[in-house]
Structures are given as C-alpha cells and as structure tokens.
C-alpha cells in the first residue's frame, strides 16, 4: 500500500486530510440518509450504465442485468436475516424456511385460486411469520441460544424441505410451475408481478431492498434496536435490567421472516418454476447468510456491499474460468478471507484504512486503535 511510505510523505498527509474531512462528514447527523439515498439513486441508474462504453470497455462486459437482479435479491434476503441474526445476535441457519414459504405461497395461491401474487406475497409473509413464531416460541421459551439455535433453525428449514418434497398437492419434488398472468386474470405488468423483460424486475427487487433497508435503519435507531443490541452483547444482563428478551427476540425473528418471504416471492415470480430443493435447501440458507457475513454482520450497509462484491467477483472469475460450481467456490473463498482477515466484514475496512493513514500521518485516535490486526504490521 502506498500510504505506508513514511510520516514525511506528502501523499500521506494529503490522504490524512481527505480521510479527516470524510470522517467529519461521516459524523454529521445527515450522513446516513444522504449516503443511503445516494447509494439507492446510484443503483437505480446502474442498469442504464451497463450500456455505456468508454474506450470500448463498459460495465456491461463485467456485469449482466441478471447478475444485478440476483445481487439485489440476495441483498434483500441478507438484510432481512440481519435483523434477527445481526442486530439481535441470534444466528439463524434456517432462513430458507421463510424464503421457501414466501416462494410457494403466492405461486400456489395464484395457480389454484387465481389470487394476485401481490396478495399472495403478503399471505406468504404471514405464513412465514407464523412459522417463525412456532420456531421462536419453542427455542426462545426454552432459552436455546448460540450453537443450539443454529441447529434448531437448520432443522426447521430441513423439516419444510422434506415436507414439500413429499406433499403432492404442492408438486412434490418437481415443484410448481409459475402460472401465466391470465391464470389470475391480468396481463403482464406490475399488477401481475410478471414482466416480459428483465428491467422491470430489477426495479421491483430494488424497491424491496429499499423497503427492507429503511426498516433496518429505523429499527437500528429505535429503542427496539437498542434492546436488540443489548440482547446480542449480553442477554443475561439485558434480562437483568428488565428487557423482555424473549418478546424482543421473537419480534426480530418475525420481522426478519416477513421480509425474507418477500425475497422468496420475488424468486418465485422471476424464475419459471420452483422446486423444494432450490428454495428450501441448505444452500439457500448459506446464500442468505453469505452477503451479510461478507459485508458485515449487524450493519445496514453490509448485506448490500457483500451481495455486490460476491456477484462482481464471481462474474470476473467466470470470465477467466467458466464452470458451474465457480460461484460457490468464490463465495466460500471470499467468506474465508473476510472472516480471517477482516472479522468486521468489508464495511469495517474504511475504518481500518483510516487508522492506517492516521498512523502514517502521526495522528492518534484511540478509537481506531482497537483493531488487533494492526499490530502485525509493526
């Protein structure tokens, strides 16, 4: 890195000034709203930017619209997961249950009863919340935490997987094919939740992500968010000071399930068909956790940053070597690197860079000095 060249270095001082001004800007009250709106505005124009070419090189050669849509989809699911697993610290490895219920409900309702997928999506959310309450009621009531909670959530997701594989009324192992819009009395378009092109899907899932992100921000800044953080850091202490921990954990889980079901509904309406293995499988659990874990668990920006990082790295990798398992391998390797080299996730990197610059410029800000990885550089 260039910013290690010594205290007298001019580049170092310049960087220091830039970081300092960025940091004061970052501390202002309007920083988060401005950043969030800016980021989403950027995402809104991103599909148009795919076609722009400068000197024959364009974003479109790295990223496809399909990849962007999937990145947004997993970002939405990861953001929802983060509500209970990041904010409240209850690590779930069973969000595929909510995702799958969210995918199946609108499709089955639309196919069998001609219900609009939008209503179906809300119904799916309701089903997912009900399931979350069963799960949370059993686990939280018996004070199942940590590793045990991981086990139970996974088992609940697998239970649904095997149930849906065996119930022929919902298609069994071969799943459900998405009905055409006339099956529920509409034509292609927003009302039908089905489009002939990819671009409208992009904006639908972007809107989903925006809603979940807004909810996450609101929760984070509310008293509920404060209680959830207290539960994450020390549940016994939180209970001791009078926080009804079971109720708050249940709330976080239900909220998380509600929005995870949206991601599932989008999946169902985007792809031509769904199968139990694809929406309830173990890999879905992992796909939901990955973006948050890579970007930064417990942060609002983390799931979005993580999802896009993953998608960009796998797209770049795919251009070098192309085989179908590449995406999984990339995901695993990136996750491993992040956990080992930057435990706070990618979003903690700017803080670390700032600390490095501080050291180069001779400034000391004790807040940044806590990172243990820094001592290795000395």
């Amino acid at each position, binding site marked *: 890195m260039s910013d290690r060249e010594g205290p007298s270095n001019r580049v170092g001082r310049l960087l220091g000034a830039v970081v300092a001004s960025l940091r004061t800007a970052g501390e202002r009250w309007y920083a988060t709203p401005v950043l969030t709106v800016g980021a989403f505005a950027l995402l809104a124009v991103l599909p148009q930017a795919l076609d722009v070419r400068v000197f024959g090189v364009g974003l479109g050669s790295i990223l496809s619209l399909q990849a962007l849509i999937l990145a947004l989809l997993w970002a939405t699911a990861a953001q929802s997961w983060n509500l209970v697993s990041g904010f409240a610290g209850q690590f779930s490895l069973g969000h595929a249950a909510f995702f799958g219920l969210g995918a199946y409900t609108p499709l089955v309702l639309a196919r069998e009863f001609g219900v609009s997928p939008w209503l179906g999506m809300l119904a799916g959310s309701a089903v997912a919340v009900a399931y979350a309450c069963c799960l949370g009621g059993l686990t939280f009531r018996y004070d199942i935490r940590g590793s045990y909670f991981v086990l139970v959530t996974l088992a609940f997701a697998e239970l649904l997987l095997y149930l849906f594989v065996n119930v022929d009324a919902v298609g069994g192992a071969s799943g459900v094919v998405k009905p055409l819009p006339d099956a529920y009395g509409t034509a292609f378009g927003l009302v039908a939740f089905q489009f002939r092109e990819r671009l409208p899907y992009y904006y639908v899932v972007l809107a989903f992500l925006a809603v979940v992100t807004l909810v996450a921000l609101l929760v984070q800044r509310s008293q509920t968010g404060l209680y959830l953080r207290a539960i994450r850091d020390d549940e016994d202490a939180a209970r001791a000071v009078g926080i009804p921990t079971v109720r708050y954990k249940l709330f976080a889980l239900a909220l998380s399930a509600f929005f995870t079901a949206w991601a599932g509904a989008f999946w169902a309406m985007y792809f031509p068909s769904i199968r139990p293995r694809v929406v309830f499988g173990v890999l879905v659990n992992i796909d939901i*956790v990955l973006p948050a874990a890579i970007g930064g668990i417990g942060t609002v920006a983390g799931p979005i940053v993580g999802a896009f990082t993953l998608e960009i790295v796998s797209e770049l990798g795919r251009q070098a070597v192309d085989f179908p398992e590449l995406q999984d391998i990339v995901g695993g390797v990136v996750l491993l690197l992040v956990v080992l080299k930057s435990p706070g996730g990618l979003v903690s990197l700017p803080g670390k860079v700032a600390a490095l610059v501080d050291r180069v410029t001779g400034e000391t800000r004790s807040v940044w000095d806590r990172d243990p990885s820094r001592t290795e550089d000395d």
Partner: protein
Amino acid sequence: MLGVLLGAIYAIVSVGLTIIFGVMDVVNIAHSAFVALGMYTVWMVAQRGLSPFLGVPVAGVLLFVLGVAIQRSAIAPLVEERQSSRLLVTIAFSIVIVAAIEATFGPTPRNLDLDLGSIELGGVYVIRSQLYALVVAAVTFAAVWVFLHRTHTGRAIRGTADNRTSAAYAGIDVERIDAITFGLGAGLAGLAGALVTFVQPFDPYLGNTYLTIAFVVVVLGGLGSIPGTVVGGLVVGLLHVFGSYFLPGTYYKVLILVVFVALLVFRPTGLFGGSVDE
C-alpha cells in the same frame, strides 16, 4: 440390520460432531463435506481396482490430516472470537469442498456395485458388505471409546471439553487438543462417509442429509454425551428404516425431524442430557 448399520453410521458422524462441539464450541457445518469426501475417497480407491474396504481407513486418515490442517490454518486464529465467526469458517469450507467435489466428479449419483453375496445369520439373510461395514463401525466405536477414556490425550480432550480454562491451567496444551479433536472429528466423518458407500448410492450433496440427521442424533443424545449419541444414532437409524417401510416417499425424514422438534418441547436437554457424566 440395515437400521442398526444406518444407526451406527449416524452415530459415528454424530460423535465427530459432538466432540468438536464440546471442545471448540462450534457447530461444524463442514462435517457434511467431510462425509462427502469420505464417500469419494472410497470411490477413488475402488476405481483403482482395489478393495473398497481399503478406502475406509484411507478416508479416515486423509480426513484426519485435512481436519488438522483446517483447524490450524483457519479455526485456531479465531478461538478468541465470537462463536459465529468459527461457524462461518466451517460454512466456507463446506461450500468450497462440496463445489470442488461436484466439479471433479459431477453431480450424478454413484454406486459401488459391490456384490459379495449374503450370508445367513440366525435365520436372517444379511448382505455381506453391510455386515463388514457394521463390524468396522463397531470397532471404530470401541477404538474411540478406548482413546477417549484410556489414553492421556483422550482424557485431555475430555478435560478440555469440560472446562477449557482449567484444562489449560492443568498443563494441557489446548491448542494441540483443538487440532487433534478437529482432526478426529473430521476423520470420523470421513470414515462414516466411507461406510455410507456400502449402504446406498451417493452424490456430492448426500453429506447434507447426514449432517441434518447428525444434528438430530446429537440433540437426541444430549450434546456432548457419547453414550447418548450412540443410542441416539441407533434410535434414528431404526426410525429411518421403519419409517421408510411404513410411510410413503421420504416421509421418514419428516418423521425424524418431527421427533426432533417434539423432543425440544418435552425434553430439551436430550434423552440423556444432564444425567450422563461425560
């Protein structure tokens, strides 16, 4: 017979899982990948024209080495971190290993096509290869039990599982114990995977099924209890066989998981939890 063998295999997977959990407080998601690696080790050995039974110890040793390597390189640096970061590391390894197997061998199911015939045992015909697999499983259990109870290292492992800090004060090198435990757990998973090949066709994702069932077994027996795990494994193995006989399709898996949930409600500490001194 098949129920007992399946139960034994489930129990071997679960014992590996439970000792890793006991010592390091991590739910080893990569266990499914270790099981899958064990299956394909046997496959490779059989492809070379050698007896598939030779693949069983090979799988055990290979996975032990891999387990130690993974523990040393990726889990040891995170011992002081939150439990979730160790969990994430095992998830990462699980994805990479399964994807690598799929890339190498393809996703299609394989079958050993091993036919050694059957023998009559007390009026019941028993498939010979499954009988041998059961013997291997029984020997494995005896070996693990002797190792954990009668050797210095084994006692050190149990001591570390009981209380890490006290173990360190008593002069136990806990980092070495961590490595050995993870290696042992991985080795047992590999061995179990190797035995699976004598029972059913296998594909790169079959390990996931065994992992889920191992979770049930572990909770059934009480986390950290080895006798409990053996009994839990046998119970689930029998549930599997009788369930698939009396219920249509793969409903037996639903049955196993329903038992798991019911257990959580009525006896969250497991059938043996709290009562078995381990």
